[in-house]
């Protein structure tokens, strides 16, 4: 299990954790990178999925349409991307089946890039999910979807400012009319290859007392699982008594999330 090979050629090496992806049922044969598609319900994830893959998954104006995961693939600049459409969720905090599917995939599957599709007309509410995802993963791109609808409603979004705030690329898109797709593909590629280095926003407004507990707990987590990239997040989940995470810590499974950007490790085939 812990048979690691330090790969010197970090630049071209995918950072995803093949073993975990296979466990989650993703067939990575012939793919270089894995891209997860997350977002609130009814923001157009499936439409973006269809645009990128050319598949015709049924889309509908219907929150909660995608219950299980859908998968597809595409090729961009000689790289083969596997794309996984996750069920839409409002948060990753509670434990309904669809939220767990989405969260476990991002956490244990460690996609190379997570595309977070947000509804531009409801940016503030959608940002709750964005911030939660950025606690788990470093590598994300925001697709500012339904931007045409926002414009129609006189909502102006400064995507450069937003990108600066979040520390990740932000691309205005309108999946229904297929605008912004090229730019999105480009940014996915850049983040996947490490050309664009994300400096994701981390939630900071916790009270002193909570912060102290998080710090102490995450210190201990790091000593047990030194490779864990999101120890602070795991600490918060443990403090909240999240059963899935508690089980994963007890069984040591959480240790399998051990690949970080700084030292890329490729599983020995």
């Amino acid at each position, binding site marked *: 299990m812990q048979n690691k090979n330090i790969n010197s050629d970090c630049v071209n090496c995918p950072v995803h954790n093949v073993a975990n992806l296979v466990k989650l049922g993703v067939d990575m044969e012939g793919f270089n990178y894995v891209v997860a598609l997350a977002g609130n319900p009814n923001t157009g994830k499936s439409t973006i999925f269809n645009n990128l893959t050319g598949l015709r998954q049924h*889309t*509908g104006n219907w929150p909660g349409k995608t219950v299980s995961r859908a998968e597809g693939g595409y090729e961009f600049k000689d790289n083969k991307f596997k794309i996984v459409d996750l069920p839409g969720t409002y948060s990753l905090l509670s434990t309904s*089946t669809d939220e767990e599917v989405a969260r476990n995939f991002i956490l244990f599957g460690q996609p190379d890039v997570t595309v977070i599709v947000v509804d531009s007309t409801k940016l503030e509410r959608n940002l709750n999910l964005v911030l939660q995802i950025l606690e788990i993963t470093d590598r994300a791109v925001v697709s500012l979807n339904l931007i045409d609808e926002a414009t129609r409603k006189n909502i102006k979004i400064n995507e450069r400012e937003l990108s600066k705030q979040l520390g990740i690329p932000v691309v205005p898109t309108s999946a229904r009319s297929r605008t912004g797709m090229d730019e999105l593909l480009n940014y996915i590629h850049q983040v996947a290859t490490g050309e664009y280095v994300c400096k994701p926003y981390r939630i900071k407004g916790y009270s002193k007392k909570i912060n102290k507990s998080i710090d102490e707990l995450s210190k201990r987590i790091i000593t047990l699982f030194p490779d864990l990239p999101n120890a602070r997040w795991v600490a918060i989940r443990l403090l909240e008594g999240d059963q899935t995470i508690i089980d994963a810590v007890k069984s040591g499974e959480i240790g399998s999330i051990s690949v970080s950007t700084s030292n890329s490790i490729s599983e020995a085939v």
Partner: protein
Amino acid sequence: MKSNNNLLDKNIELVSYADSLRWELGENLHDSITETIFEDAYSIASKSVSSIDKKVRTNWEVSLDRLVTSRIFGFPIMFLLLSLVFWLTIEGANVPSQFLSSILIDDFHPMLKGLSASLGIPHFIDGLLIDGAYLSMAWVISVMLPPMAIFFPLFTLLEDFGYLPRVAFNMDKLFQKAGAHGKQALTMSMGFGCNAAGVIAARVIDSPRERLIAIITNNFSLCNGRWPTQILIASIFIGSLAPASLAGLVSAGAVVGVALLGIFLSLVTSWGLSKTVLKGEASAFSLELPPYRPPVILRTLYTSLIDRTIIVLWRAIVFAVPAGMVIWLVSNIHIYDLSLAEYFIDFTNPYALFIGLNGVIFLAYIIAIPANEIVIPTILMLTVMTTGLIGTGQGNGVMFELDSIKETGDILRAGGWTVLTGINLMLFSLIHNPCSTTIYTIYKETGSLKWTIFSTVYPIILGLVVCFLVAQIWFLV
């Protein structure tokens, strides 16, 4: 091994350390974490979003929402829209249906027969493949394709426009009162397309209790395998009760009536379950009404054709081919003078007539367990065979299409069918076991043999009871 155990001990220690910290932090940790996230989201949004229009929803959207979700007009509008969709389907499907059947059955079937005769293929193989497998497939295509090609795009347009979540919004209060989850309204609506899909969709419901209720009751949503049966039988037996000019409307009304009965049964069953074996309070949820979006019509037509029509049709064909062969076999394998089918029909007829059905319908439902789509062709074929209406069909065990709905009606009447048989068939088609795909899906989703058996047997018993009651009332009146 030892070092491994040691590690696990440390992990457990870590968890208990977290537990002790949680005690110190107090109860409102979750709330304060959520609040922090909200505050951060607010501060980021306020820096990057400008000129936020306070009235995000435009006026016409608000008034349309008030109208379609209003206490007074909500349900009548739902009823009218559904009736309109069915009326268009019933009226529109007839012509292409006849066109397809004239090509596939009147022209192509004799050609195949002629070809096989000239090649000297033995009767047994020729009958099994051409009269059994091919004809059942041809029947399914000519009868199911036109209504589906009209019904699914219309339904998808309503969905894309954003009407379905409003239906769920209207139904929500009813489901809550029945002790079920409001989201069951969504899974129920998906069941109108396909019950197996509806059962899978029940994953959006968090509580296992309410999810189970949603899974068990999904069968009461009339699925697309059963719409054609409803539409055909309603046109023959109910529509003919009205003057010709109103026949289409009356038939559509009857189909909507059966669909509404299904919703009613779904509510009653949910209520019954939540008061007895699946006790509990309904949990609250928030349902976001999506904005109305102008449907992208061409793409909708394309995806609903590819995604629903073709897939459903393919499934029907896959199941119809072996079923056609089974029908041909049971009506051509004779023991002494009677075929297997006739033994079964003669045996069950007395019981079946008592509840306003007949032995043919029973046998058809057994053969059609894999797919509801082939109930009607099976019934027609068996009826012809047992009543000895030679000349209409093409001999024993041949599934065939008749040139018009009127002729189909004539055959059924000759087989002893009355308006009661028609009504009870429509009821039984609504209330019987789910198809084998759905049963398998229920098993996969619940992981429980007990609940799978319950979901299968309960509707059959309920259906038989309902038919029995209707028949008794009919005989009295």
